[in-house]
């Protein structure tokens, strides 16, 4: 072999190796995007599952509570004035502070601290007249300081926590009066303007209701439509039209469905705004084509021999379909449905258009109560400037992703456990 040919061959082999590397790099890039992404979310979000408390002492002084009765009833405790007691509980942390500076101490706990002082007494009526320790929710700024997310070295006027508050915080921390516990209230309380009090309960329920409504509307219609198109439809122009229609509908941008919900469901049918009912119906229009396509594919996968056997036994077309083909296709249909619902679960834009971005600080009990949904909650929180919301958003994302992973796992399990392999 002469050197020219050798060189050429070498070049070609090098090109071959290079090309293979390009492919590896591309896959590596795609996977590393995913890894960086997950790392970012988890590293920012895990701290939201911890809640910071400030421990102080509260004196349930009858005089300050304005309770006159000798042995006060539940109502007396309910109607007592907790303002001074709660105020004193916080200011007692630094008795030397002049009165006009007291705000600085009060700002270290959430604005609901008075209610927390009240709740403790209502739960333990025998604390009346005693001095007892109490846990108060720390404000989100103190919370962020405690979690180390807050740079201390920037100038005081750019900080939300001033030097004096930091000094008090350090003192409490040394004494062990700053507690960090699992943040149950993140899961049980509704949205709030204050990061330290905000939870996902309202948006979680909103999501659950929307998904249930979506399922109730889209699943029956989609399955029936798929049965018709796959088993009964004559081959003509109109069925072709329906088919093209469904394929295109699956690729229409989600925001267009939001416009449809706004223009038809809200403006024409006057359904209640901002509710999971409207959100669910809007999402169901979106998932309809996805489920139809999945259901048709799994109907198609049922071998013709099954149908022929049923027909040969004298079953009618309808009986063959309803008794044999449809039950056999159900695993595929169900897993397609779950995947469609998982897609709908992550949708934000259509829900924003039908008003599910309203600030909701109650937990919805029915699908016709105003609510947000998890993705919309992510959007709302990420728009707020407060630092405490960043970790809340990440935590909310983690909950949403967990939800999605569960649904996709369910789809996999349904498919693998129940699907029959025809071969």
């Amino acid at each position, binding site marked *: 072999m002469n050197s020219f040919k050798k060189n050429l061959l070498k070049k*070609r082999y090098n090109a071959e190796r290079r*090309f293979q590397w390009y492919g590896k790099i591309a896959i590596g890039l*795609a996977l590393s995007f995913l890894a960086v992404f997950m790392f970012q979310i988890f590293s920012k979000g895990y701290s939201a599952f911890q809640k910071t408390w400030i421990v102080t002492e509260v004196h349930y002084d009858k005089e300050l509570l304005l309770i006159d009765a000798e042995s006060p009833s539940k109502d007396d405790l309910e109607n007592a004035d907790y303002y001074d007691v709660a105020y004193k509980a916080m200011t007692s942390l630094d008795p030397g502070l002049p009165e006009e500076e007291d705000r600085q101490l009060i700002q270290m706990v959430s604005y609901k601290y008075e209610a927390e002082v009240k709740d403790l007494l209502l739960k333990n009526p025998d604390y009346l007249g005693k001095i007892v320790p109490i846990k108060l929710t720390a404000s989100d700024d103190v919370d962020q300081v405690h979690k180390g997310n807050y740079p201390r070295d920037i100038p005081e006027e750019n900080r939300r926590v001033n030097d004096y508050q930091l000094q008090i915080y350090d003192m409490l921390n040394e004494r062990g009066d700053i507690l960090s516990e699992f943040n149950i209230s993140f899961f049980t309380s509704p949205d709030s303007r204050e990061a330290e009090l905000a939870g996902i309960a309202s948006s979680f329920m909103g999501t659950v209701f929307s998904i249930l409504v979506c399922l109730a509307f889209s699943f029956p219609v989609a399955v029936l*439509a798929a049965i018709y198109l796959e088993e009964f439809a004559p081959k003509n122009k109109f069925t072709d039209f329906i088919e093209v229609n469904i*394929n295109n509908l699956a690729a229409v941008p989600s925001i267009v469905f939001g416009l449809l919900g*706004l223009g038809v469901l809200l*403006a024409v049918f006057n359904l209640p705004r901002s509710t999971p009912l409207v959100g669910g119906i809007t999402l169901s229009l979106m998932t309809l084509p996805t489920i139809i396509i999945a259901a048709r594919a799994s109907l198609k996968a049922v071998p013709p021999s099954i149908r022929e056997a049923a027909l040969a036994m004298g079953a009618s077309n309808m009986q063959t379909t309803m008794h044999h083909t449809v039950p056999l296709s159900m695993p595929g249909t169900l897993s397609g449905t779950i995947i469609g619902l998982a897609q709908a679960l992550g949708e934000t834009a259509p829900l924003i258009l039908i008003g599910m971005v309203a600030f909701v600080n109650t937990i919805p009990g029915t699908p016709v109560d105003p609510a947000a949904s998890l993705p919309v909650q992510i959007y709302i929180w990420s728009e707020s400037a407060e630092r405490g919301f960043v970790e809340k958003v990440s935590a909310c994302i983690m909950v949403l992703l967990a939800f999605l992973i569960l649904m996709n796992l369910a789809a996999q399990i349904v498919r693998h456990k129940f699907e029959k392999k025809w071969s």
Partner: protein
Amino acid sequence: MNLILVTFIILLAFTSYYFGRKKALVIQSSQRLTALPKFYGYYLAAWCAAPALIIFALWSVFEPSIVKTFILQDYTDQNLTKNELQLIYTKVKALAAGTYTGNITNFLDESANKYIQLKGIANSAKVAIILAILIFSLSFAYRSVQKNDRMREPVEIFLKWVLFVASLGAVLVTIGIVFSLLFEAIRFFQAVKIFDFIFGTHWYPAKTFVRDGQPDPELMKDAFGAVPLFAGTFFIAFIAMCVAIPIGLLSGIYLSEYAGRGVRKYAKPIIEILAGIPTVVYGFFAALTVGPFVKEIGNAMGLEVSAESALAAGAVMGVMIIPFISSLSDDVMTAVPQSLRDGSYAMGATKSETVKKVIFPAALPGIVGSILLAVSRAIGETMIVVMASGLAANLTMNPLESTSTITAQIVVILIGDQQFGDPKTQSAFALGISLFIVTLFLNVIALSVVKKYREKYE
């Protein structure tokens, strides 16, 4: 009221099912049944529920507009515009419901009373008619059960109709989309010239906000030019494709031609996770991490970068789109017949030469289709842009500045309370229909290309 009526109909249908089945067993003692006993039950239940529910649905759809015509009849001599009439009707309804807070004129009070009266009449009429229909259709069906007519065929025909109507659902959604968009968009184009919308270069709808009276037509002319939005949309989609096409295509080639079964089995679904992450999550990621990162790099290089840059939004969108391209192109390349590869190897070509000169050209239509679908996806993407690329519609080709897109503007306009009949709100629908047309166009081409390609090798 409505709920009770529907529940009643459904309960009655269930009862008639059991009744029909029992009746069949009675008939069985004297003559041969024409079908299984349960079909007698289905027959009765279908005749019970279907006509009553259809009439109920029709009634519920038409009742409000009929009542409205009756109420507004009293106002025809006052020479009012359509909007004023609508306002009066809303007031009357609110007054009747006891939620009206404005001052109550005699006339309004009278109308509200009439409204309550009409509603009452309508309600009792509805109940009466539905009961009559129930009695009529049930007795009709019962007679044919008694006569022991053929039972299975009618039930199956009925079921087939139910299936057919369900399959119309998808068509109905499309019709709903087109009409709801068209309806508002046409009203928008009555206020703003379509020419100004398509060719205007200045988008600033907030300018047209006027508390009372009509906005200035001169202002309107200059506020709704959609060119910056179209440009921004395609620009961000272009950036996204610059990220997604090379990575997606090379991954697809590697997966289909080089990767072993093990790698393919795990790598493909993991990459597809990227497409399953909700877009709002990407938006947060783009706004919080990628945006500042791009800005830092730009600043270090001495460039002026806005915190919300088209580059950040486009790049993150590109990452989201990678799996659309990689999975689809993997599928189409795997579908290329092995004989083409064998032929190429037999001529002494290396693997990469085979990919570049044989498989890629053979799979090109399918790959183009997948790219078109990805573009349509990028154009329709909303949340990433809303959260990461700013909301001011700049006409710019600088990836470091912020731009806005059609979808982002729709969200900006419609977030919060909307005022129907306001050109600003209507403009969102005009944007919506242009978005719908563009994506539909891309989808139709992509789907037909892919379909043609599939036929070629099957």
